[in-house]
């Protein structure tokens, strides 16, 4: 991220690089002579600013994409929970809901680490893998929670992602 002060300090550097590039290119000196004093020196900084604005808009698009996935995930979880209560017992439904919320938490952590990729970190964090570990440990310690419904609930984020990908018009 380059702030406005950094942008002004970069401007002479960019202008000198542009001048060097134009001098080395064929007919570059003629271009420099013809355009000297016409205000074209500010063009690189304007281009950088417009790129930053477009990048911020595009990141907002990513945030709204996350919100849509979250909503679809909640809907899929609710449908699966109702079906489990109808066709199985309440313990299975509790296990499935616990697994589903673990899956939502896992996906949020994964989206957060992907959002920071290339900005604050150079690799994707593995912190989200602790979520299934804690889920399995909880299953092994608590007798109320069953293993299979919890795992199915945890993996409910995958149909949610597929549904969201199919619903996306430009995907």
């Amino acid at each position: 991220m380059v702030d406005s002060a950094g942008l002004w300090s970069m401007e002479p550097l960019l202008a000198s690089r542009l001048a060097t590039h134009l001098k080395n290119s064929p007919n570059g000196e003629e271009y420099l002579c013809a355009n000297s004093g016409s205000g074209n020196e500010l063009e690189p900084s304007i281009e950088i600013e417009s790129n930053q604005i477009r990048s911020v808009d595009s990141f907002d698009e990513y945030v709204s994409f996350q919100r849509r996935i979250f909503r679809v995930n909640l809907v899929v979880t609710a449908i699966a929970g109702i079906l489990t209560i109808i066709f199985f017992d309440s313990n299975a439904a509790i296990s499935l809901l616990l697994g589903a919320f673990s899956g939502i938490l896992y996906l949020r952590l994964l989206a957060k680490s992907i959002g920071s990729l290339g900005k604050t970190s150079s690799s994707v964090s593995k912190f989200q893998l602790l979520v299934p570990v804690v889920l399995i440990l909880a299953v092994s310690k608590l007798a109320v929670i069953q293993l299979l419904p919890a795992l199915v609930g945890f993996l409910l984020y995958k149909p949610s992602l597929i549904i969201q990908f199919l619903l996306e018009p430009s995907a």
Partner: protein
Amino acid sequence: MDSITTAASVVAAGLAVGLGAIGPGIGQGSAAQGAVEGIARQPEAEGKIRGTLLLSFAFMESLTIYGLVVALVLLFANPFAG
């Protein structure tokens, strides 16, 4: 649980996590590399690139999670324990 079953379960758990993480690790590395290169070339497409990266990472990492689940089940809820 007898000692042979315990030893086999521990070895199998280690193999499940270790071998199961190799493929997704390589795939995630190359996907992240391509995504960062794409964002650097086209900053205006950052949102779409990150969204696609999220989808691919979620599906790739689930392979690691399968291995992790098998390993944890072998360690903490072993069905072969007598």
